[in-house]
């Protein structure tokens, strides 16, 4: 291969071509010939570089990495002379290139294994060729050329891939049901309605590596016999939606979506459907209703979507992360995939670490890693050197796991047995200063608000639980409240229509089980052990520590603090509204909470 000192990449995006990219390229070649530079400078076509609408036709020149935009045939001559003869960057056409590094996803820690997150920040999600460079669409090519539908389903079954949406149902089984269901046409749906507070792994995959999901869906479509797919993504994720649309458009241009993919007789196309951000639309039947244009409300199952789904036709629904696993399993093989993970759960899982942990953010670990390793080795331990109290896994419907579960090896079964769920992978770490009753109240507030209201246990039950918890936090708890909470939780779990109601009481059930003493302290002693619930605490100023600097008195919004300069100050408890400002502003730690 000849050595070129410089390479020009010309964007051949359809929009750029419309705006004259081919003419610009021809002119480039002509100018280089005139200057006798053709054996020094190489010209290559590429997919989009910048935004074709505002910057096309554009080129990228290496090794300098300069991005020249909005070129015309007239601008080529001076550009070639300046850049390639005189070696000067031509500022008037140069633009800053979009950075593809991602500051939301950190470099992996030692114990992490990155599979789903491996490309994020490393490839340009808006350029399909970047994905192709990292073996993208090779799995789809392999499936279409070498494997039968049954082979694909068997491979996914053997990989023991399980639904990453949280329930952990074997993906291969799901595909088998949909493939075997009678009815035509069949549909593929990607559930990208990520709604757990603090969880953003699906958004990151859609924004950073959208083609892995598209490829996974196309492979699934081939396996179950579907030719149309929908990605249901919430409108609160505008960047994910626009990245997905760009990716789908590019895949169509390259013949990787649409009719006769890669010259075979398999056709598959995708569309993005936006949801209005209702939490319940993550439930599959509600999601289907929403795509159909109805209210996002769940319905009774069976019939399951595999037999009667979208528009009454057989439908397969998987989560973003599940689909992103598929091409990797096909491409790298079962042996590689099943070497990661625990006995029953293979592969890796992304988690969104949040709360009182040193390093918050997205992580990816193989199944079977202990909570202690995740929180301490990867998460860096509890913020501010405080003690660990609990971790809540799986989003608002998960349970809180106290210290004795720290050595739990995380997978679907172990979390379920411990009274929590895998969920989509939210992980909220709480330190010793967290009030567990208040936490239960917080999550109840969320699920109560997000309950769609279709079935009574969930609609009324969550409201009643919330009222009781609010009363307990306000110091008005009654002894019979604990029994009442137990009864309510049991009935909501048993009688609710969908997963939202069945999971909603989980934070209450788990905190009642592991932190009953805190409930009792609130109810019987009217005391909040973590000193969080405002109505159950009081502030007072320590005589030893107070220097009489008057800062607290000047900052108190209700004038409850009195005292002479350089003498100990006092808080009038009748006036105090327990806002905590005095504690925050005191420079000597003299304000104590009881």
């Amino acid at each position, binding site marked *: 291969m*000849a*050595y070129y*000192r*410089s*390479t020009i*990449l010309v964007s*051949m*995006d*359809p929009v750029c071509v419309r705006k004259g990219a081919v003419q610009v390229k021809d002119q480039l070649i002509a100018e280089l010939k005139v200057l006798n530079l053709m054996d*020094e400078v190489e010209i*290559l*076509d*590429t*997919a989009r570089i910048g935004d074709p609408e505002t910057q096309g036709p554009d080129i990228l020149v*290496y*090794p*300098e*990495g300069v991005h020249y935009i909005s070129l015309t045939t007239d601008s080529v001559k001076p550009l070639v002379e300046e850049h*390639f*003869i*005189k*070696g*000067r960057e031509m500022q008037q056409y140069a633009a800053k290139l979009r950075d593809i590094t991602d500051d939301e996803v950190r470099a992996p820690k030692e114990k992490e294994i990155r599979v789903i997150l491996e490309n994020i920040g490393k490839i340009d999600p808006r350029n399909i*060729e*970047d994905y*192709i*460079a*990292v*073996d993208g*669409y*090779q799995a789809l*090519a*392999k499936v279409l*050329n070498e494997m039968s539908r049954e082979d694909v389903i068997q491979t996914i079954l053997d990989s023991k891939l399980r639904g990453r949406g949280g329930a952990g149902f074997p993906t291969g089984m799901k595909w088998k049901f949909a493939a075997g269901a009678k009815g035509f046409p069949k549909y593929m749906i990607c559930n990208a309605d990520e709604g757990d507070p603090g969880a953003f792994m699906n958004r990151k995959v859609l924004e950073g590596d959208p083609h892995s999901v598209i490829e996974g869906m196309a492979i699934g479509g081939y396996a179950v016999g579907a030719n149309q797919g929908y990605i249901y993504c919430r409108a609160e994720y505008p960047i994910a939606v626009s990245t997905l649309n760009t990716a789908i458009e590019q895949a169509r*241009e*390259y*013949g*990787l979506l649409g009719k006769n993919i*890669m*010259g075979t007789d398999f056709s598959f196309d995708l569309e993005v459907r936006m949801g209005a951000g209702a939490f319940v639309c993550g439930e599959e039947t509600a999601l289907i209703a929403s795509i159909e244009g109805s209210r996002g409300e769940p319905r009774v199952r069976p019939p399951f979507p595999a037999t009667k789904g979208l528009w009454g036709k057989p439908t397969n629904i998987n989560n973003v992360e599940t689909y992103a696993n598929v091409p990797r399993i096909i491409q790298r093989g079962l042996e590689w995939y099943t070497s990661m993970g625990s006995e029953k759960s293979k592969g890796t899982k992304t988690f969104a670490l949040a709360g009182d942990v040193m390093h918050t953010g997205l992580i990816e670990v193989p199944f079977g890693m202990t909570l202690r390793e995740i929180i301490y080795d990867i998460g860096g331990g509890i913020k501010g050197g405080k003690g660990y109290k609990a971790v809540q896994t799986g989003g608002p419907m998960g349970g809180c796991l106290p210290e004795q579960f720290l050595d739990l090896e995380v997978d679907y079964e172990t979390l379920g047995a411990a009274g929590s769920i895998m969920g989509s992978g939210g992980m909220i770490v709480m330190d010793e200063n967290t009030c567990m009753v208040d936490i239960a109240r917080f999550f109840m507030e969320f699920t109560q608000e997000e309950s769609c209201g279709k079935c009574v246990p969930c609609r009324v039950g969550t409201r009643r639980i919330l009222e009781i918890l609010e009363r307990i936090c306000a110091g008005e708890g009654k002894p019979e409240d604990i029994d009442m909470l137990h009864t309510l939780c049991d009935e909501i779990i048993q009688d609710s229509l969908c997963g939202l109601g069945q999971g909603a009481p989980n934070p209450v059930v788990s905190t009642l089980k592991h932190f009953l003493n805190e409930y009792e302290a609130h109810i019987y002693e009217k005391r909040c052990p973590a000193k969080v619930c405002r109505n159950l605490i009081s502030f007072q100023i320590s005589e030893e520590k107070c220097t009489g600097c008057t800062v607290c008195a000047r900052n108190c919004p209700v004038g409850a603090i009195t005292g002479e300069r350089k003498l100990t100050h006092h808080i009038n408890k009748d006036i105090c509204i327990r806002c905590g400002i005095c504690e925050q502003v005191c420079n000597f730690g003299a304000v104590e909470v009881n």
Partner: protein
Amino acid sequence: MPKINSIEDLKRLREEAQKIKELRDQTGKTQIVVGMGTVGIAAGARETLKAILTYIEDNKLTDIILRQTGNFGLTGQDPVVKVTLPGKEEVVYAKVAPDVAKRIMKEHIGNGNVVLEYKISE
């Protein structure tokens, strides 16, 4: 963009795409910069650049970035060539005629020995 119509198309595209991706990655590569201002070109910088290119091609060297820049501002020293081996201090050479360029390529880039006679101290 041409449609991908077969597995071979896809493999070919992957190779092209990998090459482009490789271009973006500039860590761990040797950098050679030739001063190509008006003075540089008049003093023969084009021939020097050609000589370096030919040397790279003939010896099938990889991981080298050859770029040009404007005038180095070293009056009477053109053609000027700057060489930076990965992790090393940069070395600036003066009056690099094509045969000197070849020597620099062989001794400095090939064996890591700076050609002291042509080196300019900063």
